[in-house]
């Protein structure tokens, strides 16, 4: 009996130690990136890597004062925010329609949205580049946000549909029997119940737009360049400016990491839901 208890305890310790090691392995590259942002130029290239050093803010000074990273942060923020809000405004009514109405070509239409979401950005980015030139909208916020909608709206519809369908239609019907209009019933009953889904979807879309690279890289230039596409700045003739790169990566990933951690419950449920819905 004693040995069995001991063995059980021991394997439990072992499991906990294993878990710590594994999770640390996944955290380590990110930690090293953040710590490298605080290194001096010499320490960045040191081999073997320097683990203990005097933190310097030189890299952060450089990116904010010399590269004006604030401008690109602002661009990214404008694009990601407007893309998420616009997507939700357009996708929520469409989702409601898919979840609550019966009409011809409903499922084919839903699949059509899904297939469009599957199209890789790189495969049409050069066409989008030419269209932008023809319409004279190259390098504008409007165009980039509009292009993001092509992927975000189908994504939001597929994410949200499950959330709406999970809410019993009887609740709405009861409200309508009591004299509510369809839209009143939606705003009063259904919308409050799908808040989890709305928050989760908005977060995923915001993160996606914030991180988006391949479209922004080819469709923006001096006016609206977003943060992920600034990597080209660090490839100079005198080699790659690694310190500044690490600082930019730290600044650029910080908002998303903080948001994801704050709302991790939503985040995980969003990923799960997306997975379960297929």
């Amino acid at each position, binding site marked *: 009996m004693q040995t069995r208890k001991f063995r059980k305890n021991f394997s439990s310790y072992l499991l906990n130690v294993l878990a710590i090691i594994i999770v640390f392995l996944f955290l380590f590259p990110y930690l090293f990136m953040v710590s490298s942002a605080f290194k001096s130029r010499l320490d960045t290239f040191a081999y073997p890597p320097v683990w203990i050093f005097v933190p310097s803010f030189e890299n952060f000074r450089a990116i904010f004062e010399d590269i004006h990273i604030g401008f690109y942060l602002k661009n990214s923020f404008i694009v990601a925010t407007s893309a998420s809000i616009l997507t939700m405004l357009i996708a929520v009514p469409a989702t409601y329609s*898919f979840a609550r109405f019966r009409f011809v070509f409903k499922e084919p239409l839903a699949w059509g949205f899904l297939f469009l979401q599957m199209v890789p950005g790189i*495969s049409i980015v050069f066409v989008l580049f030419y269209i932008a030139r023809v319409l004279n909208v190259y390098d504008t916020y409007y165009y980039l946000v509009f292009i993001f909608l092509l992927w975000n709206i189908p994504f939001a519809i597929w994410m949200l549909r499950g959330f709406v369908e999970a809410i019993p239609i009887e609740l709405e019907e009861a409200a309508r029997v009591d004299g509510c209009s*369809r839209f009143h019933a939606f705003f009063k009953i259904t919308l409050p119940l799908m808040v989890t889904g709305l928050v989760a979807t908005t977060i995923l879309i915001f993160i996606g737009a914030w991180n988006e690279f391949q479209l922004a890289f080819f469709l923006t230039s001096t006016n609206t360049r977003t943060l992920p596409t600034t990597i080209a700045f660090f490839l100079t003739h005198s080699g790659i400016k690694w310190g500044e790169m690490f600082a930019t990566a730290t600044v650029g990933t910080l908002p998303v990491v903080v948001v994801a951690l704050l709302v991790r419950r939503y985040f995980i449920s969003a990923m799960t839901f997306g997975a379960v819905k297929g």
Partner: protein
Amino acid sequence: MNLSVKRIDKDSRIAFGLILPAFLIVFTLAVYSAYWLVRMSQTKWIFGKTIDEAIWIGLENYRWLLFNENTTLWNSVRITVIYVVICLIVELVFGFVIALILNGKIFGRSIYTAILIIPIVVMPSMVGMVFRLYFSYDGLINYFVEILFDTKLNWYGPELALPAVMLVDIWQYTPFFVLILLAGLQALPKDPYEAAKVDGATSWQLFRFVTLPMMSPLVVTVSMLRLMELLRGFDVIFVMFAGGPGDATTTLPLFVYKTTLVARNLGRGSASSVLLIITIVSLTFILIRIFERVRFEM
């Protein structure tokens, strides 16, 4: 009878009205792009020249890509298959094992799941840049390789460039499997386990005959989602190696980029885009069909 028909009519008008904005934006853009893409794919057009200088050559670009002896398309297909299959299997197996570990009696599980979100949400372009330095000859990865195996590897060379980008993807998206499968494991009903334990099942039998069957729909779905993302993967590979050295990391999305911008052949690039889109969309279609059948049988 008459009344109900009328009612459905009115309803479906509302239904279409609600979908209309989404439909117009998405499908207008898609159809317009598709029209241009297909037209471009049938021209001989050097990138940077105006459309007036493009020459109509019909399906010649497709014929060249698929059948010409100099085409590297099939090599890219091979690289893509290697990249996608290995990443998917490794991420799934590691992800499942780690999820099982974290599903045990673990202290501070919520801290671990929080940490595991980080790789998934960091910017792929920055990840690419950062790992470019980590994989350099005097970089972080070789430091550990030297400690473990007393040798340094040339990750920038043609043999190891593809494994390097695969390692980055495995680092970034194994947690994706972990988080989803862990959530799935924790949502499993307890009763089957109790019943199996009463019958004297070993822990391997518990896993094989209770956990695995109940988890398989979720496993299939997550793998499918990840498979589609892997097929479209561009950012990290582009930033790390831009498809090089040579063609070592030229997966299909990189092939499109290289044909269009590096070889400056807009026509052929567009043709390869069309082929890529057809491949991905039909694969999605087939996978969903298979998935529906699997789910039906379970």
